[in-house]
């Protein structure tokens, strides 16, 4: 991150926003995902419909919500309902993108947001599943946003809070989870990863500006699939940064 034009958070927001296509729906949590969705709306996906966990649909995001249930999540919205209406819409397949994060992730994109150490005598008690498990179960494509390090990218998570591809191919379907859904991208400060179609293991897709393959390997606690040709992510454009700073988060709540 030699380049001081943007910080790592801004970079991840821009990279995440680029993953979303227009005319779809996104299940939005607080923080970075909200900024990514809002940026996507203002850049290339004007018809991206945001769904907020506690009932907001089709809001006009004039101001960034501070909570997944606050007034801004249904500001001039098309529908203000409740958590189950949203969750059941997701269970019925209406939600394309979901955003996730966590303290730990494994090669199959399984996430831990519950405990470090033993569940009943935890070393660190984390916030818990929240809607994470539901998003990971129902949304067609989940986008995971995390800082990358060997401590957080681990061979096995201490606690499997939210399903990625579980133990590999067909494991989700065998468990009874909806068919054809699962982790789509992992966006980090070092690059963007996807998942190999055959093994369902994490694969390096594109490096962030100034980052090397070795750096990514050093910061990954498991064997990452690295294809011969690895892409290179474009830096945040001046327009992305301007919209992000002046329009999306003009109050600078998150960046």
């Amino acid at each position: 991150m030699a380049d001081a034009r943007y910080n790592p958070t801004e970079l991840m927001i821009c990279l995440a926003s680029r993953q979303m296509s227009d005319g779809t729906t996104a299940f939005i949590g607080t923080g970075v995902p909200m900024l990514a969705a809002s940026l996507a709306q203002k850049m290339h996906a004007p018809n991206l419909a945001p769904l907020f966990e506690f009932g907001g649909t089709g809001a006009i995001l004039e101001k960034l919500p501070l909570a997944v249930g606050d007034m801004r999540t249904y500001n001039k919205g098309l529908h203000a309902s409740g958590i189950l209406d949203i969750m059941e819409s997701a269970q019925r397949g209406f939600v394309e993108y979901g955003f996730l994060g966590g303290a730990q992730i494994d090669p199959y994109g399984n996430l831990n947001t519950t405990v470090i150490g033993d569940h009943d005598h935890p070393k660190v008690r984390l916030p818990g599943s929240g809607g994470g498990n539901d998003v990971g179960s129902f949304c067609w494509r989940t986008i995971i946003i995390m800082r990358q390090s060997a401590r957080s990218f681990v061979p096995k998570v201490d606690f499997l809070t939210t399903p990625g591809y579980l133990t590999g191919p067909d494991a989700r379907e065998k468990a009874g989870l909806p068919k054809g859904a699962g982790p789509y991208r992992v966006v980090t400060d070092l690059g963007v990863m996807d998942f190999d179609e055959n093994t369902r293991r994490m694969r390096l897709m594109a490096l962030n500006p100034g980052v090397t393959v070795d750096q990514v390997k050093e910061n990954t606690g498991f064997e990452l699939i690295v294809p011969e040709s690895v892409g290179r992510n474009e830096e945040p454009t001046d327009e992305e940064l301007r919209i992000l700073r002046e329009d999306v988060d003009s109050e600078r709540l998150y960046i």
Partner: protein
Amino acid sequence: MAEKTLRILEEGQGALIQPFDLDAFRELNRAKPKALVDKRMSEAEAVRTFIREGDYVGIELYGTVRCPMSLTREIIRQGYKKLRSAAQGVYEADLLAAASVVKEMDWTYIGLEVYGVSHNLRRTVESGYVERVVEWSNAALAWRFKAAAMGVPFVATRSMLGTDTLKYSAAKVIECPFTGEPVCLIPALVLDVGVIHVNRADRFGNCQIDGITGFAHEMARASKRLIISAEEIVDTEEIRRNPDRTIIPYYLVDAVVHAPFGSHPGEMNGLYERDEEHIRGYFTESKDPEKVEAYLDKWIYGVKNHEEYLDLVGRERLESFRIKEA
């Protein structure tokens, strides 16, 4: 661990005449447009485009109350003969029977309320034209929509137990894994087409209903295709002013049909009273098949569309049913 099991205590012998596939339902819902697109069209186009012969169709609420009668008449006009349906109905179900539109039914109640039994239903069932009838309670049928709306295979209930209604349904009774007591599981009912009449909608399909919502919320979310008729088409700004009034969001909807007096001869909350003379006239005549034919010829086959129907009823007459603002 040693394999644990639960006993299946009873299985209804009725057919699941509309088998469900929740993953296929998810694929269809994924493919529905999420952008705001104008879905307004005529009732003829909506019915032609979204209802195919043999489809499983549901109509909400029922015959004399907030019922999509203009669309029901259009379904009859277009000559469908082998539809399957969730039969919770009064006047509209009687008309579908009179016109021999339906071959198979999930049945809970079909009658004429204060006017007694439905002669046309008796004829179509007792004659054998209707080939399969599966029994349910009212709540059970609504819970079948609810299960589909939740995207799950079933809803648990403590109704239907111990009766022939359950025996002739497609429900199953199992031992509850938490209490050990018998519990009735009601299977999801994913409709091919749902047809719902609302007070107002915008052109994208965001809908508001005033007063009771019957089972509109559940049916809208249980339908692969959804046709809405609305008394009034409003600006999306009006929807955005009160998002908590939206009961059906646009992304569920395939067609929006503007249908003032669309519930006639039934009532519409806050807008108009029912046309009691018309209803009583039809129900009393409906004992006689010839008079029923004459009724269908005059009020359905004899008119091209809802506009002509309203002309036939008479605009002044319609105005007389309007509820004056208190």
